[in-house]
C-alpha cells in the first residue's frame, strides 16, 4: 500500500466571490519533493496555509503525515516544518534565542533546546552571528534561520513557501543544497515557487496551478514534453539552401520544420533526440549544405507553463486575490 505524506482532495477555499482554491488535488509520496508552480495569486500560499493548519477550508479533505488537518491539527503540527515567504522569526531575539525559544515550544527540555540550537546554528553557518538580533541579519541569513527553526524537530513534511524569493543567487543555491540534504535524509518537501528553474532543480513532480486549480501535473520532463518536447535547430550559411534543407530534415524528424529565412534557421520537433540529431547532421553533410550552427534545444518549463496557462509564470492572471490573511506591513 502506498501511503502519501500529503493528500488533498477537492480542497476549496473562497474569499467572498474569489475562489482562492477550487477542487485542488494533491498527493505527495514520502521522501520526494513536490513543486507547486504558479503565478502570484494562483493559490499556492493558500494551499500551504491550509495544509499547515493555519487556514480553514470550505470543502474537501486534507491529510498531512497521515493525520487529518482539520480534526487532528496538533498531530499535524508536531510533524511539520514551515518556512514561509516572509521569514517568521523574532527580530529582537538573537539567532540562538530564536532557536531555543522554538525548541522549548517544540517541547524540548532546556538543555536539549540549547544543544539543538547550537547544532543548527553551526549547520546553517550562523554560529558567528548567533548572538546578534535576527533583525540585523541579511535576507539570506534570516531565511536560513527561518529554515533552521523549521527543522528543530526533524519534520516528516517540510513546507517551503517560496523559500528563495528575494534571495541572491548564492543564497538561493545554499537553500537548494540544504533542501536536497533534507530530502536525502528522508524528509518529504512541498515547495511553492514562481521560479521554473527552482521547480526544475528540486522537484520530483510538479503541479502547475492557476486560478486555484491544478492545470497539469507530472515530472519536470513530462511537463516539458507537453509543449512538444525538444527541437532541433539548424542555421544554414546560405538562405537559398533553407528550403532544400527543410525537405531533407522533414522525413527524418517526421514533422514539417518551421523556417525563419531572416536568420536562416529551421526548427523542427524531435522525439528521439540524439539519433535525430545524428541523422540530420549526416543528411545535411551528404547533401553538401553548409551549416553554420546546429543544436538541440530542450523545451523549458517556461514554455510548458506558457503552453498550459496561456501566460508567463511571473505575470499574475488577474488582480491578485488576498492570498495571505495576515498582511505584511
Amino acid at each position, binding site marked *: 500500500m502506498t501511503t502519501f505524506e500529503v493528500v488533498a482532495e477537492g480542497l476549496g477555499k473562497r474569499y467572498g466571490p474569489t475562489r482562492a482554491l477550487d477542487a485542488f488535488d494533491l498527493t505527495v509520496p514520502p521522501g520526494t519533493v513536490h513543486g507547486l508552480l504558479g503565478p502570484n495569486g494562483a493559490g499556492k500560499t493558500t494551499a500551504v496555509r491550509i495544509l499547515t493548519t493555519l487556514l480553514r477550508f470550505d470543502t474537501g479533505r486534507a491529510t498531512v503525515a497521515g493525520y487529518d488537518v482539520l480534526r487532528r491539527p496538533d498531530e499535524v503540527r508536531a510533524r511539520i516544518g514551515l518556512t514561509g515567504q*516572509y521569514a*517568521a*522569526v523574532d527580530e529582537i*531575539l538573537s539567532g540562538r534565542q530564536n532557536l531555543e*525559544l522554538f525548541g522549548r515550544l*517544540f517541547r524540548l527540555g532546556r538543555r536539549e533546546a540549547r544543544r539543538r540550537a547550537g547544532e543548527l546554528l553551526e549547520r546553517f553557518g550562523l554560529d558567528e552571528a548567533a548572538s546578534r538580533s535576527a533583525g540585523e541579519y541579511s535576507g539570506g541569513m534570516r531565511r536560513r534561520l527561518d529554515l533552521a527553526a523549521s527543522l528543530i524537530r526533524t519534520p516528516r513534511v517540510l513546507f517551503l513557501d517560496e523559500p528563495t524569493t528575494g534571495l541572491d543567487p548564492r543564497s538561493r543555491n545554499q537553500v537548494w543544497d540544504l533542501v536536497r540534504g533534507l530530502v536525502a535524509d528522508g524528509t518529504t518537501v512541498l515547495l511553492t515557487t514562481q521560479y521554473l528553474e527552482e521547480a526544475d532543480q528540486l522537484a520530483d513532480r510538479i503541479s502547475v496551478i492557476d486560478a486555484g486549480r491544478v492545470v497539469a501535473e507530472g515530472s519536470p520532463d513530462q511537463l516539458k514534453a507537453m509543449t512538444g518536447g525538444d527541437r532541433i535547430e539548424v542555421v544554414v550559411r546560405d538562405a537559398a539552401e533553407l528550403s532544400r534543407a527543410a525537405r531533407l530534415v522533414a522525413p527524418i524528424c517526421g514533422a514539417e520544420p518551421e523556417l525563419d529565412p531572416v536568420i536562416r534557421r529551421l526548427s523542427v520537433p524531435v522525439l528521439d533526440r540524439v539519433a535525430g540529431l545524428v541523422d540530420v547532421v549526416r543528411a545535411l553533410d551528404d547533401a553538401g549544405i553548409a551549416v553554420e550552427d546546429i543544436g538541440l534545444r530542450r523545451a523549458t518549463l517556461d514554455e510548458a507553463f506558457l503552453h498550459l496557462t496561456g501566460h508567463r509564470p511571473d505575470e499574475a492572471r488577474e488582480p491578485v486575490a488576498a492570498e495571505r*490573511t*495576515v498582511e*505584511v506591513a
Partner: protein
Amino acid sequence: MTTAIADGWTMTRRNMTHVVRAPEELILYFSLPIMFVLVFGYVFGSGMQVAGGGNYREFLLPGVFVMTMLYGLGATATGVALDLSRGVVDRFRSMPMARSALMTGRSAADLLRALLEMSTLLVCGLLVGWQWRQGVGKAMLAVGLLLLLRIAITWVGIYLALLVRNPDTVGVIVFPAAFPLSAISNVFVSPELMPPVIGTISEWNPLSATVAAIRELFGNPGLGGDSWPAEHALLLAVLWPVLLIATFAPLAVRRYQRLSR
C-alpha cells in the same frame, strides 16, 4: 493544562527578553510618568488646588500611577501587532504549542513589566514627598488594584492589535486616545472643580475609580465629593477592570481564532 502553563511561561520569558534586548521602549515608558510628575508637580502644581485641600504632589502621584498603567496599552498593542505583522505568529500557530500561550505570555510579561514600572515610580514618588499613610497592607492592596487595571488594559491592547494589525496604526490610535482619557478623569484635577458635564464624565471614567480608590488606600488627599462613583470608588476599581476583562478577553480570543479564516 500543564503544557498551556509551560508554553505561556516560555512566551512570558520571550517577551521579557525583548525588554532586556530592546530597552529603548522601556526607557520611554519610564520617562513619561516621571516627566508628568515633574511637569505637573512642579510647573503647573503651584497653580493647582486640591478639592478639600492637601498637597498637590501627594494628590498627583496616585493619578500618575494609574496613567502609567494606561500607557502600557501602547506597549501591549504595539508588541502584539508587531508579532502579527512579522509573520512570527504564523510560525507559532504552525507549531504544536498551546494556542493560549501567545496571549497569556503577553499578559504575564506585561504584568511583570508593570511591577517594574510601579517600583520605579514608587521610589520616584517618595523622592518628591509622596507617601502612603495607612500602612503597608493597604498600600499593597492599592498596588494590587493597579495591577488588576493593567491586566484589563492588556486585554484591550491585545484586542486592539488583533483588530488593527499594523503596528504603526496602533501607535497612531493609542497615544491620541490615551491622553484625553487620562486628562478627563481625576488624575490631574479634582472633578468637583471641573465644569459639571465634564466633571461627571470624569467621575465615571474607569481610570478615576482606580485613582480614587488608591488615594483612599494610600491615605492621599483629594477623596472626591459625595457623588456615587466617588463614594464607591473601591467597588468600582474592582468592577471596571473585571468588566473590561470579561468583555475584551473573549473578543480577543475570538479574533485570534479568526486568523485561520
